[in-house]
């Protein structure tokens, strides 16, 4: 059951081959056994989880069933879930019990899904290795001396180690796609505005998007059907006709034009990863697609642009954490100013503080034009690169990450080196485009992901493209040794 797809689990539940309670207990047992080492989950609440499973069983008995009813999902600890501790990986929210549900949580609730628990993450979603969490590092189930990627590292490890049926993540600069690549599963970041951000603790408002992380493209499509849709509480949530993201899964690929950006196959990409990715692309040619060379000339600039815009927005978004109304307040302080400064110094980790300081700096008087404004201008150039590219191809492919999972601690002291992990994923967030990563093979026994980038609102096609590959290969079915 732990390797079953969402469709298979739903069928088994419907056919009463297994109950939601039993299915949930299956995963809870695995969590008990494997989580202490992997540290994928920050918060578990067995009683609450099983109560939900019981309710789901009642629904299933009545025949009132959605595709995810009774199925246990892991929720990234960035989503406020009512009466659940919601930490965002930070000491600042160590004891924060959310008094309301995020839209995403609501959607899963209404569909009768079960919340297995809150997964670990880089603090305030800032990181690419899940090493900045106040609640400890997460280990990559494929090699526990290595990182799972970040910021959705907990969800990633949970999927790889089969500690959940699937999980939610968020992606601001690659935080779904890069862990998907490093942990060998399928993750999708939708077009900006497709999934509501209400209740999703904000990092960089114009870049953040929630998305599904699962064992297959088909599972991601099922999850996206639950997560996507207009929410009036989010001004950036788009009002569009409801879509069924599974509708095109089985379309034939003949005639598909795949763009290969030359900048994604240049310096910085590990040779082993390049090989795997090229093989995957070759496979697509066999499936009837044709490839076309394209250029995204401003790719290199996406890093500095991102590291101006994201910290700037974050520095402002994180100002509300001041110890006044909730969250960490210092135990001792002399006056109001001291209370602010100590609470925030104690509540935030080093990486978060760094980004707040950079963000504050680039917005400060005299620097706004040179940094923030400039970055937003180059952002438009980056978006225009994609616009131009999509005139010549239907979909873009390349690596998701420049290498495979690196050793824990290897890049922790070198922020810049860590930032360069995001080189292939960041531009997608800047442009607001949808992006996916699917398992494409292994290099040195570690997973390698193939990134698929689509035009705005082209998720159904991307899922189709991914699904076609997954019908013919079984990289996505692999499980790490020792996790059975």
């Amino acid at each position, binding site marked *: 059951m732990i390797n079953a797809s969402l469709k298979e689990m739903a069928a088994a539940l419907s056919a009463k081959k297994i109950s939601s309670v039993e299915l949930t207990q299956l995963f809870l047992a695995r969590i008990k056994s494997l989580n202490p080492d992997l540290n994928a989950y920050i918060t578990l609440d067995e009683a609450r989880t099983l109560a939900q499973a019981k309710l789901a069983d009642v629904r299933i008995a009545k025949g009132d069933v959605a595709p995810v009813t009774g199925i246990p999902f892991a929720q990234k600890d960035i*989503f*406020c879930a009512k009466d659940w501790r*919601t930490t*965002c990986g930070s000491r600042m*929210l160590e004891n*924060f019990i*959310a*008094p*309301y549900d*995020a839209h995403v949580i609501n959607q899963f609730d209404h569909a009768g899904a079960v919340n297995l628990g809150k997964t670990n993450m880089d603090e305030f979603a800032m990181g690419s290795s899940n090493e900045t969490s106040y609640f400890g590092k997460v280990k990559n189930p494929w090699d526990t001396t290595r990182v799972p990627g970040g910021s959705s590292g907990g969800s990633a490890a949970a999927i790889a180690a089969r500690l959940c049926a699937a999980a939610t993540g968020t992606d601001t600069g690659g935080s779904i796609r890069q862990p998907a690549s490093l942990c060998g599963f399928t993750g999708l970041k939708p077009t900006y505005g497709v999934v509501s*951000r*209400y*209740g*999703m*603790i*904000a990092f*960089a*408002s*114009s870049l953040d998007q929630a998305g599904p992380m699962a064992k297959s493209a088909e599972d991601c499509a099922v999850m996206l059907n639950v997560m996507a849709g207009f929410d*009036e*509480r*989010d*001004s*950036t949530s788009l009002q569009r006709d409801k879509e069924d993201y599974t509708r095109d899964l089985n379309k034939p690929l003949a005639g598909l034009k795949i763009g290969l950006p030359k900048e994604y196959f240049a310096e910085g990409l590990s040779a082993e990863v390049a090989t795997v990715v090229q093989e995957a692309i070759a496979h697509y040619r066999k499936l009837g697609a044709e490839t076309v060379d394209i250029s995204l000339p401003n790719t290199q600039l996406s890093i500095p642009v991102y590291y101006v815009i994201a910290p*700037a*927005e974050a520095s*402002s978004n*994180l*100002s*509300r*954490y*001041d110890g*006044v*109304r*909730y969250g960490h307040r210092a135990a001792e302080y002399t006056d*109001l100013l001291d209370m*602010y400064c100590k609470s925030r110094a104690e509540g935030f980790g080093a990486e978060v503080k760094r980004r707040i300081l950079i963000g*504050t700096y680039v*917005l*400060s*008087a005299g620097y*706004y034009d040179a940094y*923030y404004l400039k970055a937003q201008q180059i952002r438009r150039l980056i978006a225009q690169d994609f616009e131009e590219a999509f005139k010549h191809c239907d979909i873009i492919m390349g690596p998701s990450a420049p290498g495979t999972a690196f050793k824990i601690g290897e890049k922790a002291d070198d922020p810049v080196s860590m930032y360069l992990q995001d080189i292939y994923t960041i531009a997608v967030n800047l442009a607001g485009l949808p992006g996916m990563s699917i398992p494409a093979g292994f290099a040195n026994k570690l997973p390698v992901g193939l990134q698929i980038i689509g035009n705005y609102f082209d998720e159904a096609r991307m899922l189709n493209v991914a699904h076609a590959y997954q019908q013919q290969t079984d990289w996505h079915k692999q499980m790490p040794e020792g996790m059975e």
Partner: protein
Amino acid sequence: MQWEVVIGLETHTQLKTNTKIFSGASIKYGAEPNTQADEVSIALPGVLPVLNAEAVRCAIKFGLAVNAEIAPRSIFARKNYFYPDLPKGYQISQYELPVVGKGSLTVQVGDQEKTVRITRAHLEEDAGKSVHGAQEGMSGIDLNRAGTPLLEIVTEPDMRSAAEAVAYAKKLHELVQWIDICDGNMQEGSFRCDVNVSVRPKGSEKLGTRREIKNLNSFKFMQQAIEYETQWQIDTLEDGGTIHQATVLFNPDTGETRAMRSKEEANDYRYFPDPDLLPLAISPADIDAVKANMPELPEAMKSRFEQQYGLPAYDAAAITASKAMADYFVATIQAFGGEAKQASNWVMGSLSAKLNEAGLDIINSPVSAQALAGLLKRIADNTISGKMAKDVFEAMWAGEGDADTIIAKKGLKQVSDSGAIEAIVDQVLAANAVMVAEYKAGKEKAFNGLVGQCMKASQGKANPAQVNEILKKKLA
């Protein structure tokens, strides 16, 4: 050295909506602390703003009322600073592209007309409130007010005296109530003025360094504060000192302005467009929809009163000084059906005098428009004289009933019977032979004396016009 004071105003008006600018929490005044502070108001992690349609309509109304440009596209920006009554650590406001652009307001200062240019007006959210003394050394924060919609109205530094500034503030105060976007309640903080004051040698083109007097919530204090600050700046400069940019507070007890202690380096607000909000688009159709629902503006109404009712400009201006007064006047005319000037005289005269004396707004007048019309009718149909009417009015004000009731009760009906008046005149002429002789000798004033005697003899009830006529006839 001749000095000139240069004044600009920034006015924060709380908009008369049902809910906050970015969330569906109520903004009703007087609620228990934090009972109207929803998750958006207290800035919980993950919450987001959504713009209130009515707040936008209010902004458009204001723009139309001051003949301003209304931006087809305006942007919300974050103003970043830390303060306990600012839960997000930033205020959502508008910076480079405000919803309302350049406009103007013409005000009456004594007998001069002054046009004050409005630079811009923008939408933003109000902060919460800090309550002192909750506990020793602690402040208590109430976030009910956080998120209340504000329209911040900024003028060019066009005013040149405290009187001009106060005249502008009063006119603006009336205008925002007139177009029903603000309840104007200064005690409750619905209308707050910050005044920027600087001085310069007369004739100089360059602006002096300005200081900002914050949180003035009465026109009286505004006048005092500006006068004090102006003199203080002049004295400082004449003593060889320099003016440093500062925020100052006015102390009503001492009548002085003082720079705020916490003035450190000028705040770096790090404005940037709020990524949680999209550009606000206003189409010509949107503007037309608001225009269709706008009440007639004071200027237009003033002109119309001059035309329609033949009122002189001065009267028309006084009557349209407030919507409430204009409404009262119109109601009076409609119930009265007689000469408009009669109505305007009474509203501007006796009624206003009584209202001012009692400190009442016309809305709370004990004499309603209908009641006043009733009185005017009795003057017009000669039931009572104009002079007698004043007494009747006093009685009406005191709550003794309507005009007819009082006239009947006190037997004040004017005597208009010529026979009766003749009898009185004959009586008076007989009893005042000296005065008659003086009049016949050419002393015009004696006539008035005789009229007076007739009025006295009739306990004021004789119709004065008839008395005059009959007296003249009999003395001829």
